């Protein structure tokens, strides 16, 4: 990885050599990749929308004016009105918060659980590995959508009305519970390779304790594949939130999210498609941002693909 450019700065060979670590190399590659720049801009816009919706609109997202129901996009309301006469532009802006919260929350839980179990299974091997892997297989064997529907209906039988925080937590946890085995497997196989490296043996012979080896040496050195997966998974989780709401088991009305908007609009799709296409477009746009980011980071981190 540090080949070639040593002649670039003949006066200070040591520093030039040092600055071209794998991370620095990846960063150089990333900055020049248009995919990375575009995805960062998209994500930045969505994050600002999530944090400060008031910057974009001053209209109340829950204020309905039935005389304007299902009006098409026009001068007063860029994105038109929904079936209760609420301003879609404002709802889409405010909806970013719940959708992103679900996406980020589910990704964090699934990655933390997967990484911890994966590194433990990979490091200790034997029965610890067998048990963790089989439990992973059990959850991986459940078809994702079916599993999520069953979990969410068990928690909220039809006609019940859970609170806003409760339902967001439930959606986050049910997505995470069904998808942690993927990051566990990635982490496990990365740990298996890293475990054989000399620096682990060196640390051991210097008397480092097991927790120190795991958390200070193995974890930072084998987390890269999981981080790439996490960016793509974050996008996928935002899509999953929309799909679950569309199926009627995810977030529901007092909460404003893109999935809830899509689910409200589905029955009117033939007459007023803008109600569905606009929130769905935002979902697509956000997922696109994260998938592109994941792609760019993977290309930059994988020296083989250069």
């Amino acid at each position, binding site marked *: 990885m540090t080949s070639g450019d040593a002649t670039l700065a003949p006066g200070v060979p040591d520093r030039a050599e040092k600055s071209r670590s794998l991370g620095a190399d990846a960063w150089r590659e990333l900055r020049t990749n248009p995919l990375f720049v575009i995805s960062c801009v998209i994500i930045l816009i969505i994050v600002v929308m999530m944090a400060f919706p008031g910057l974009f609109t001053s209209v109340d997202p829950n204020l309905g004016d039935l005389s304007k129901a299902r009006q098409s996009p026009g001068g007063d309301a860029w994105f038109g009105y929904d079936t209760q006469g609420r301003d879609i532009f404002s709802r889409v802006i405010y909806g970013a918060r719940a959708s992103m919260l679900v996406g980020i929350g589910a990704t964090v839980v699934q990655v933390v659980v997967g990484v911890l179990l994966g590194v433990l299974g990979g490091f200790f091997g034997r029965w610890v590995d067998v048990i963790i892997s*089989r*439990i992973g*297989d*059990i*959850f991986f*064997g*459940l*078809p*994702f*959508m*079916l599993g999520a*529907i*069953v*979990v969410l*209906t*068990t928690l909220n*039988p*039809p006609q019940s009305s859970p609170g806003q925080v409760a339902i967001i937590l439930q959606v986050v946890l049910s997505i995470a519970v069904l998808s942690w085995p993927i990051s566990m497997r990635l982490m496990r196989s990365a740990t298996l390779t890293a475990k054989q490296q000399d620096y682990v043996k060196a640390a051991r012979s210097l008397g480092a304790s097991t927790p120190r080896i795991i958390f200070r040496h193995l974890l930072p050195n084998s987390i890269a594949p999981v981080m790439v997966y996490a960016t793509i998974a974050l*996008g996928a989780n935002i*899509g999953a939130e*929309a*799909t679950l709401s*569309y*199926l009627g088991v995810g977030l529901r009305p007092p909460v404003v999210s893109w999935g809830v908007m*899509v689910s409200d609009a*589905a029955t009117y*799709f*033939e007459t007023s*498609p803008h109600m*569905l*296409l606009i929130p*769905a477009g935002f*979902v*697509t*746009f956000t*997922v*696109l941002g994260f*998938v*592109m980011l994941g*792609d760019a980071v993977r290309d930059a981190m994988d020296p*083989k693909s250069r």
Partner: protein
Amino acid sequence: MGRYILRRLLQLIPVFFGTTLLIYVLVWLVPGDPFAGKCGDRACPPAYIEQMTHKYNLDQNIFVQYFLYLGKLFQGDFGQTYSGVDISTLIGQAYPITVRLAIIALIFEGVIGLAAGIITGLGRKRFVDNLVMISTLVLISLPVFVTGFIIQVVFGMDLGWMSVTVSSDAPWGELIAPGFVLASLSMAYVARLTRTSIKENKRADYVRTAIAKGQPQKRVIGIHLLRNSAIPVMTFLGQDLGALMGGAIVTEGVFNIKGIGGLVKQGIETKESMQVVGLVTILVLVFLVMNLIVDLLYAVLDPRIRYD
């Protein structure tokens, strides 16, 4: 190889029991009276409740219930719904439809996904490459139901090439559009996977050797390059058949197809727990068996992989 197959089969057993137990407990734990609303407006007569409680072993501990259920299942008895319809009959009607849908989706993935992957992997045309990369990116980002709605509106309503919903016996012809929708996400993955795999193998030593010893290009590509690049793609396609059948629930909902997904959803909504458990158990079995077959196929495709 024999020992490997045996070991894989043994590993499958705890996973099968774990997954089905999980589903069983989740489904039967749905809170609320299982008999609420089952007898119209009136409350159910005690005789009916007693009979049903006995039939589903509801008076037993949930783990005992589960093993009694599995015992019957292994004899091919899926049980009955509350209204007395055999669940095996329901499955018999819905299963062929979902299988047809999954096969069409798999064909789309195989044909379009592979073709796009091979063309971009082998070719040097920047324009085609960018086109495929961008269109797959968009397909990956679109939630499946949105793809479904768009196809319905464009081809069903604006162009009038197909009907928006699928009739109840779902002939092959009507399933083409839903099959495409179901395949859309995986098709994009197949295209990208094939492209990466070919690009990587193009620089492999054995390809250089084949060219160096003067083999015609057709043979180098057909025999050496493509066959070796097929391994990750085959793995993906094999695992995907199981995932497609489980994932069909959304597509079936959008196009109103009376398949497994529709039955599961209806079962959950009407609290027909027996129906849900039976259907999901079958899906899990298909998924596990497909994974096993894929693992064994590795050895056939890649002689470098040995299992003993």
